[in-house]
């Protein structure tokens, strides 16, 4: 039984443009829920360059990806946005009354007046490792994410990777697995030192195995894994396993966006430049995901697009009200909403 959440706007993507859209919408008393496949906000800023300096945010000579995300979260606090992280939007459908139903892969349903697609370069999805013939095993015995730990109880598990994801799942699953083997191409791990220490202790006590090398082949039948070959510099091992969990990082994929009836141009969504609306009235696209004559894939562009888009969304949400343009510097009304008056 899925829960239905009713709101004014659903924003797909909680990167910088999705986050700032909350501010512009909030000033106009428009409530928003944000959905993002990552388990954190910040989009590309948080995932690809959290520690790297950005020099072209207007008014801020230098800010890191992480710093910008934090600042935006602070800026939108007065509007109490709702976040649904680690979740992907599967369907967007237009209803009879011209509102929208949005369904996610966690069985959540939203009903809203408008949808904002701030999907950036696409949703961050797990990278497929370079192992020939892996596809038939995917979702059956090769898993890129763990939804239910219990599914792995009593199984022989192969975890591949050297970062926090691989180490965290190794530590979480080792106690319930029949036998767990961690495979990494180097004997150095990128994850948190504490996790690395715990893993090494389990290896030392014989409670799990560590193999330095790369998975080069899989054995199995009908999607069910039976064993994997791991080749090291001078070694080759056949490791029996019922399931493999490879953690090779994330890559941006367009995903279901292409299936909602929205006109696309080469994986981008064409919009008008007055309100950044797509070919479907009530669905807007801002940030890297959209395209229009002169478009630049800059954060500052996404901010501008969010501001203009909000003015049009107001008329969908409050069709009988008149929109009076106000400045945050002089409007007591706006300042009250921001909590500063």
């Amino acid at each position, binding site marked *: 039984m899925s829960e239905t959440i009713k709101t004014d706007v659903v924003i797909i993507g909680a990167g910088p443009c999705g986050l700032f859209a909350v501010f512009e919408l909030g000033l106009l008393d428009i409530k928003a829920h944000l959905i993002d496949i990552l388990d954190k906000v910040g989009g*590309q800023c948080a995932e*690809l*360059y959290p520690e*790297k300096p950005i020099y072209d945010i207007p008014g801020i000579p230098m800010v890191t990806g992480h710093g910008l995300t934090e600042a935006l979260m602070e800026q939108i606090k007065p509007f109490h946005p709702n976040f649904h992280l680690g979740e992907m939007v599967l369907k967007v459908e237009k209803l009879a009354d011209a509102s929208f139903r949005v369904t996610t892969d966690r069985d959540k349903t939203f009903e809203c007046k408008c949808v904002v697609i701030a999907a950036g*370069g696409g949703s961050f999805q797990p*990278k*497929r490792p*370079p192992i020939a013939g892996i596809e038939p095993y995917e979702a059956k015995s090769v898993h890129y994410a763990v939804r239910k730990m219990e599914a792995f109880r009593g199984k022989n598990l192969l975890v591949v*990777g*050297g*970062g926090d994801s691989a180490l965290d799942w190794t530590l979480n699953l080792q106690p319930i697995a029949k036998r767990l083997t961690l495979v*990494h*191409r*180097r004997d*150095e791990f*990128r994850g948190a030192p504490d996790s690395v220490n715990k893993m090494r202790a389990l290896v030392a006590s014989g409670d799990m195995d560590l193999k330095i090398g*790369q998975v080069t082949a899989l054995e199995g039948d009908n999607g069910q894994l039976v064993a994997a070959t791991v080749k090291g510099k001078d070694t080759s091992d056949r490791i029996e396993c019922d399931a493999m969990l490879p953690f*090779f*990082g994330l*890559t*941006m*994929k367009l995903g279901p966006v292409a299936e909602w009836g929205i006109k696309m141009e080469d994986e981008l969504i064409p919009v008008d430049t007055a309100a950044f609306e797509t070919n479907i009235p009530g669905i807007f696209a801002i940030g890297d995901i959209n395209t229009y004559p002169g478009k630049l894939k800059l954060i500052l562009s996404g901010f501008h697009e969010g501001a203009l888009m909000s003015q049009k969304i107001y008329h969908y949400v409050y069709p009988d009200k008149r929109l009076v343009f106000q400045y945050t510097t002089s409007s007591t009304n706006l300042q009250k909403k921001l909590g500063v008056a």
Partner: protein
Amino acid sequence: MPKITFIEHDGTKHEVEADIGSTVMEAALKNDIGGIVAECGGGCTCATCLVHVDDAWSEIVGPPSSEEDQMLDAAFELKPTSRLSCQIKVTESLDGLIVHTPSYQGR
């Protein structure tokens, strides 16, 4: 200006000029070389600008830094001479460099 030769997986050769101080990835993007995706734009966080340095040039180009080595974990198909092209800076000593681009960068 130093010259770099990119050889695609199907054997197509491209010889391009590269600015000193730029990276091999930038030279590839500037000249629309197939096989380089560069999803993160050169920030050493995506491993989709992978190239296999020609054996003859591997020693001159050198090994990856530890930061790059960590990212190579996520590369689609590693060979002993693989490097992230966004981390190879173009210098005079690389004039004539030959690199091979893969058929697939994992996305």
